[in-house]
Each structure stands twice: as C-alpha cells, then as structure tokens.
C-alpha cells in the first residue's frame, strides 16, 4: 500500500486530475467496446428475425 489515507489516494500527490482522467477514459473505452457490439448484436438479431418472419409470411 503506497497511500496512508483515502484523501491522499484521491489527490495522487497533486496528479489526481491526470491519473483519474486517464483511468476514466480507459473505463469509457473498455465499456464502449463492450456495449457497442452488444447493442449492435441485439439490434441485428431483432432485425434479422423480423425479416425472416416477414419472408415466411410472404411466401
């Protein structure tokens, strides 16, 4: 453990802004890379299923 208190951990010895900004961005990129394909997959399945059912009724 390299910090003695929570506030010390949060300020990061004056570099808190930079460190937390970086890790925040890291979290955003990682989450985006999970959420985007997940959402796209859901939308795709719905779209394909709908089309399939439509074709079935049509024929």
């Amino acid at each position, binding site marked *: *453990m390299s910090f003695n208190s929570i506030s010390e951990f949060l300020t990061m010895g004056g*570099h808190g802004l*930079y460190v937390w900004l*970086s890790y925040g961005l*890291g979290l955003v*990129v990682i989450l985006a890379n999970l959420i985007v*394909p997940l959402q796209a997959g859901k939308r795709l399945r719905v779209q394909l299923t709908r089309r399939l059912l439509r074709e079935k009724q049509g024929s």
Partner: protein
Amino acid sequence: MSDKKWMPRWFYQLASPRWCYQICGKLLPWFTALALGLLIGGTIWALVFAPADYQQGNSFRIIYLHVPSAILAQSCYMLMAIAGAIGLIWKMKVADMVAKSCAPIGASLAVLALLTGAIWGKPTWGSWWVWDARLTSMLILFFLYLGVMALNSAIESESTAAQATAVLALVGLVNIPIIKYSVEWWNTLHQPATFKLTEKPAMPVEMWLPLLVMVIGFYAFFAVTLMMRLRNEILRRERRAGWVKELLLSKSAV
C-alpha cells in the same frame, strides 16, 4: 479451393462460420471472466499498491493504461493485416470478418493510447502534446486505422471491400516499421530526448509486475470484444444460411 487438403483440420474448421460462431459463444464467458479479473485486479494493484515513481510521482500510474493500449493497438493491426491476407489468399470468409472486426477496436485502443499519453505529458513535460516519437507513430497508426475503416465503408460489395481493405492493411503493415524508424530518427534529430514517457532504466519488479497483469488483461479483453463483434459479423453475413435462420427462429419462438 481444390488444394485445401494439406491444411490442418482446425484451419479447415475455422473456415466454417457456423463452427466459429459456436466456438466463440463457448469461449466468451471464460474470456470475459479472465479479462474482468485481470483488469480489475491489475487496476487495483496499479493504483493502490504499486510504488510511485521517484521522478514522476503518481502520474506514473498512467503507464498501466498507456502501455497496454499502445501494445494492443499494434497487435490488433498485425492481426488485422494477417487475417486480411488469409482471407485474400484462401478466400476464407471468417478471416475477412475477423479483419473487419479488428479495425474499430484497434482504432479505439489507439485513441486511448494517444489520450493517456497526452494526459501523462501534461505533468511530465508541462504541455498536453509533445511530438514524442512514440506518440507520433501512434498517431500515424491511428490514421492507418482510419484509412482502413474509411475504405471498408466506402466500397459497397462486401467481398470487394474485404479484399481491398486487406491489401491496404498489408501495405500498411510493411510500412509500420519504416514509419516507426523514420519518426524515431526524426525525433532524435529534432529534440534530444531528455525525458521519455515510457523508457525507464530497469523498472523494479513491483512496478512491472502489475504492468504485465494489465497487458495480459488487455489481451483477454481484446479477445472478448473481438469475439463479440465477430459473432455479429458472422450472423450478418451468413443471414441466408440455414443454420442462422434456425438459430434466429428458435430464439424468437422462446
């Protein structure tokens, strides 16, 4: 396609989108657990337990995001180019889909590497951006990704787009070492390197061990997001195949 016989069995199976879709589905939970464990554990280790750098202080902790994302952005480009080449030579659809799925992931990782580099630069150099050799070549790598994605979306026919993108990715692959060399050499010519971001003489174990954990965690995470995109891509491209129709209808019936 008649001279496929010499290829090993797994390679042949990999060429089947259906098999690939299923194996990705089976592997996904494992990789997700691995990635989550490594990334969370690594982050706590990096933020709380790793010692601060004697020169840069706590801003040094950005390395645990910057370096893994930079490494991944490059590995991802390599995978994209190799998968593109396989798709080009053996007309393997799955390889084309892998290549296409790689591009946006790699681009986002390059962005992360650039942003963390810039943020790190502020306390270290006193300015948000410095034409440091590594940052510059990462920026160019990002441009290469943009080119690949732009070309892929500009061509309507999917197989043509995949082939054209593969050629471009391969040309880029040949150029990456040249670009890297020229930028590094240009950088040393213009500003004698006083303080490089990531090159530290002999990092102590308690510093690089969490870095290793983060790098492996990023690779696992990359596998997760790649497989998710790949599965979507397989469904989309194979939408008229019988197995996809069955799969969709069985899901919608429930």
